[in-house]
């Protein structure tokens, strides 16, 4: 008689599960969101930025009329394959830990001789006001598709940047008491219907970090990590994060290190 009893209880359990409406609704809406994402397939408008970025990379520009093909992103002059997966990193020539965006600024000002004011004229594009930095970033990042994130933290300055990034991640402030950790230190949570990655774990950090930069559907623009962080702080109700600041780079390094070993798929497509 033990057998029927067991199957009765499991039947009841599955009935209860089926009747547990919130659970069922949650699964349905999350599956539906997944279906929405799947419908984009491989057709990502980020490619339009990659195309423009390639053109910008290869075309002689600036007062010195040179291309960026001699730009050293950490793997030697002109090497872009896999470069993004190893950034941010320490650069001897500038004596700084740099992310891709700040390194591109270095190359544009030192190699091409472009004034910083011109390079920074449009940090984040808006429709017909296009950002060269975003296009170049898209192009370089795409050359790391399939590369694994590697942030060995060999240099003391990299270790210091990581420690700063970690402190910033947990820094609670502003009218809403928000920190990065408020939304990103628990697993399986979401805001509205958007799943929140737990950035303090390898799995969560990899899922998030390997997909940025991304084409943001809500804006119709390609956005880089600098933008992602700046916009997170805006939503935290904090003032504006400065582009290329030590906090921006430290936080990026912290997240990249957390995502160590993850395979880059960016630029991706995001809400």
């Amino acid at each position, binding site marked *: 008689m033990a057998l029927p009893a067991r199957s009765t209880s499991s039947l009841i359990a599955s009935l209860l599960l089926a009747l547990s409406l919130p659970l069922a609704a949650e699964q349905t809406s999350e599956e539906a969101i997944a279906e929405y994402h799947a419908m984009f397939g491989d057709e990502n408008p980020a490619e339009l930025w990659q195309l423009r970025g390639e053109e910008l990379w290869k075309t002689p520009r600036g007062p010195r009329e040179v291309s960026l093909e001699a730009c050293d992103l950490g793997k030697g002059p002109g090497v872009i394959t896999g470069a993004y997966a190893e950034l941010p990193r320490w650069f001897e020539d500038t004596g700084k830990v740099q992310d891709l965006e700040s390194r591109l600024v270095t190359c544009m000002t030192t190699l091409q001789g472009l004034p910083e004011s011109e390079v920074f004229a449009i940090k984040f594009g808006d429709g017909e006001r296009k950002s060269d930095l975003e296009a170049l970033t898209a192009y370089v990042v795409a050359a790391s598709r399939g590369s694994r994130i590697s942030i060995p933290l060999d240099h003391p300055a990299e270790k210091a940047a990581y420690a700063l990034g970690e402190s910033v991640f947990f820094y609670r402030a502003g009218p809403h*008491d928000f920190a990065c950790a408020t939304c990103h230190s628990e697993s399986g949570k979401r805001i509205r219907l958007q799943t929140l990655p737990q950035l303090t774990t390898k799995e969560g950090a990899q899922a998030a970090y390997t997909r940025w930069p991304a084409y943001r559907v809500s804006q119709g623009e390609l956005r880089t990590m600098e933008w992602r962080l700046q916009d997170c702080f805006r939503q935290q109700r904090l003032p504006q994060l400065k582009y290329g600041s030590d906090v921006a780079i430290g936080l990026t390094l912290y997240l990249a290190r957390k995502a160590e070993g993850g395979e880059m798929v960016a630029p991706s497509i995001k809400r």
Partner: protein
Amino acid sequence: MKTLESSRCRKMLLAVACAAPMGLAAAEPTDATRDITAIMKSAFEDKRQATLDRLDQDETQKLCTEARDQALPAVVAKKIAEINLATVKPPADGQYLGDWQNGEVIANTGTGLQSSDDPAKPNGGNCYACHELSPTEMAYGTLGPSLKHYGKLRGQDPAVLAYAWSMVYNSNSYAPCSNMPRFGHRGILTEQQLKDVMAFLFDPASPVNQ
């Protein structure tokens, strides 16, 4: 800390704007946090209403920052709860419940106090970002517990109303280092807006209780 905060507050009220969310309770930095706050301030810049003073931490924010994602030591939790419970002001007229329809709008509104928001517009509560409320709204977050049938399950006993008021007014009064903003204490929502949100939770006619 409570006395320090409130005396600072009173002084500031005379000077300018204690009621402004930013002006509140920015305690003197301690050695442990001075560095990071200074670094933060050098890496950020004012943008419209989102000014650098928002990076200053009050006692609660400092303690919660130090705890990171670890469990709070009991003594710290107790201290935070005390500091924050002392800030809770019951409604001036003793009425906890306002207009649930307006409360629903507040629960659905995510804007307010961001550099990109219009300061002339009322702030939202963005309750749906983290909580399930009306069974018909499927786009709800799960960072906080489900509040579906909140009033239906609890009734309107004065103690129940007072507890819920404390939670929306200052979540840290009962949940130290909660992810939930301290809506009343930090001036995010006005007293009337808090009453409206309360009505959205408790009113038998509210969709939350259907």
